[in-house]
């Protein structure tokens, strides 16, 4: 059976995705990851560092952004590498809706059964990850 992965080539655009983070989502990630840095849940701690709001864990943004690749490829065990720069914090106000992050992926290269995917994550139109690239087996 032909799968979508048989037709992968440079320029292939992956289905995009939007995730939403509320304060509760940050607390959930703190517990799951064991990263309890208070700038991810406490207004006071964020203000002490000069931030104007609580910010999401960089690793939460990194982890959810990879879903654009793993949702597409099916088996997350196919991911070989993933690298990002944290260029801009994702502010998460204490509102019912929280903050939306839009995630897109496009294949840049395919060689030896491995696709190199460039990932973009935007919050309020601004890029929050720089140079985000994942290598994933598509053979």
């Amino acid at each position, binding site marked *: 059976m032909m799968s979508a992965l048989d037709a992968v080539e440079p320029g292939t655009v992956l289905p995009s995705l939007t995730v939403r983070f509320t304060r509760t989502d940050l607390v959930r990630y703190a517990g799951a*990851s064991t990263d309890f840095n208070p700038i991810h849940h406490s207004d006071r701690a964020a203000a002490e560092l000069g931030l104007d709001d609580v910010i999401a864990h960089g690793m939460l943004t990194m982890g959810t952004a990879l879903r654009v690749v793993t949702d597409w490829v099916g088996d*997350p065990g196919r991911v070989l590498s993933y690298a990002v720069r944290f260029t801009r914090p994702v502010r998460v106000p204490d509102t019912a809706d929280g903050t939306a992050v839009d995630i897109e992926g496009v294949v840049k290269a395919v060689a030896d059964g491995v696709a190199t995917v460039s990932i973009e994550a935007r919050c309020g139109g601004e890029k929050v990850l720089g140079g985000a690239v994942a290598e994933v087996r598509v053979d």
Partner: protein
Amino acid sequence: MPISESHVGRVYPATEPYVVSAAKVHEFAAALQDDSPAYTGSDPIAPPTFAMVIGAAAWGALFSDPELGLELRRTVHGEQRFDWDRPLRTGDAVTGTLSITKFRARGATEMITIAVEVATTEGERICTATSTLIHNREVAA
């Protein structure tokens, strides 16, 4: 003496073994709002970035090394990279071994690159988690 280029190459003892559990994998996948069937069922794997749970535990050695004088609260995560040999699976007992691989300073701003090798207690490498941390050293007034 705070951290300097002379500390590049320093390797810390491996963390205590961590056993990946189905409950923790489920919790982590839920925190990523990820309902992939790969993370549930009878033989689940962990989401790729779950490796950071072990990585973060290994960071403890860096911040508790009195010679370096690093403070977590003055540290920002600048870059992160993972290279996987295979996914983590429930039941894996793994350790993290941290080494300092690069150091640069500009004034009070220090950029420290560290690599955490995540391996099973039998010695099978699972992944390497490489982080660049930006540490803003407190300068005496």
